[in-house]
């Protein structure tokens, strides 16, 4: 793909990638670095970047996976911890207002993406399933396990 076409795609979808990365990393420098990484990954399937209907869920999925991975790696490397994520709306089984990294880090990558989708982004189960390319049943099952284990962990920590 020539530079002009890449520049055009980057100008079109870069803002959405940057916003997603800012949302998850909460740091402008980290989001800037992540944006270019995510866009380069997205360029591996340029056909998905033609229409908004396919591009946005595709970007959402890649950016979410990449940025959650960055959060995990930052913890492992002992770097300054990234800020905790704000919970978008009240959830009956997750009354906390912040989704803290030490809770998130206890779960596998897919469960983390699901928990962030529902709790941080305020998505319906079906929307999370569509965006991540998994079944709604998987979303419900993994989220239920996340909520139960997170609650137990937070109770133990409080005690």
């Amino acid at each position, binding site marked *: 793909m020539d*530079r002009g076409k890449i*520049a055009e795609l*980057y100008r079109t979808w870069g*803002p959405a990638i*940057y*916003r997603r990365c800012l949302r998850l990393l909460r740091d402008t420098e980290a989001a*800037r670095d992540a944006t*270019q990484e995510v866009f380069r990954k997205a*360029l591996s399937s340029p056909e998905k970047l033609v229409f908004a209907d396919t591009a946005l869920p595709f970007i959402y999925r890649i950016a979410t996976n990449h940025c959650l991975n960055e959060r995990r790696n930052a913890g492992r490397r002992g770097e300054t911890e990234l800020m905790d994520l704000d919970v978008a709306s009240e959830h009956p089984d997750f009354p906390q207002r912040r989704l803290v990294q030490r809770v998130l880090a206890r779960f596998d990558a897919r469960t983390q993406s699901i928990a962030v989708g529902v709790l941080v982004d*305020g998505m319906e189960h079906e929307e999370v399933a569509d965006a991540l390319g998994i079944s709604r049943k998987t979303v419900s099952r993994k989220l239920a396990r996340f909520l139960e284990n997170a609650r137990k962990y937070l109770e133990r920590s409080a005690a």
Partner: protein
Amino acid sequence: MSHPSDLKLERHLTAPGQSPIGDHVSGCERCQGRLLAMEQQGEDFRRFVYPATLDEVARPRWRPGRALWLLAPAAGLATVLLVARMGPTSDYVASKGGPLTLTVYAAMPSGARPLAEGGSVPASASLRFRVRAEQPCALVLVSVDESGQVSKLYSREVSGDVTLPGGVQLDGRPGLERFFAVCAADPDTVEQAARRIGRGVGNLRALPGVQGEQASLLIEKRP
């Protein structure tokens, strides 16, 4: 009350006229606020991130098969390092500051031009920055325009003479804008101090209440 997710708001931004959440958004102050914030972040991307990262994302990618084929006949040969000189040439010197100096270059049709204090550039000009720090420095570079809008441009460790990667594109709005480079003891205080100065960028050459070496440069963005 249930509000649309970020993903739905992204879809709304791409085609507001056809958005299924248009009715909700028009009557929801919270969602309007979120959309405004998202648009501002998009503007930050276009102004700062895009020009600074385009070269990197457009760089041709390494293809293992092809690269190995090319490397095979070269086995045993000495490695040649080509060092490309990046950034402005050494005859461009228009620095501001003491132990920390800041030089701002504008991309003009005739080539990169260093700016003097109060120098004028087209309101949408592309700029690059060069700093020289006598000691290793946690550099924070921010800009404040005459309306008091603050933009954080760089935050990174620097040492010696460094041309900062990428660059920024000005926002197209005529008026004054001052760039502050700070070797900050506490980087968080720089942006806060910049926000406090409001509209007084013309005469204020250093951010008050910030510990660390500082340098600044005022430019005028002309229509």
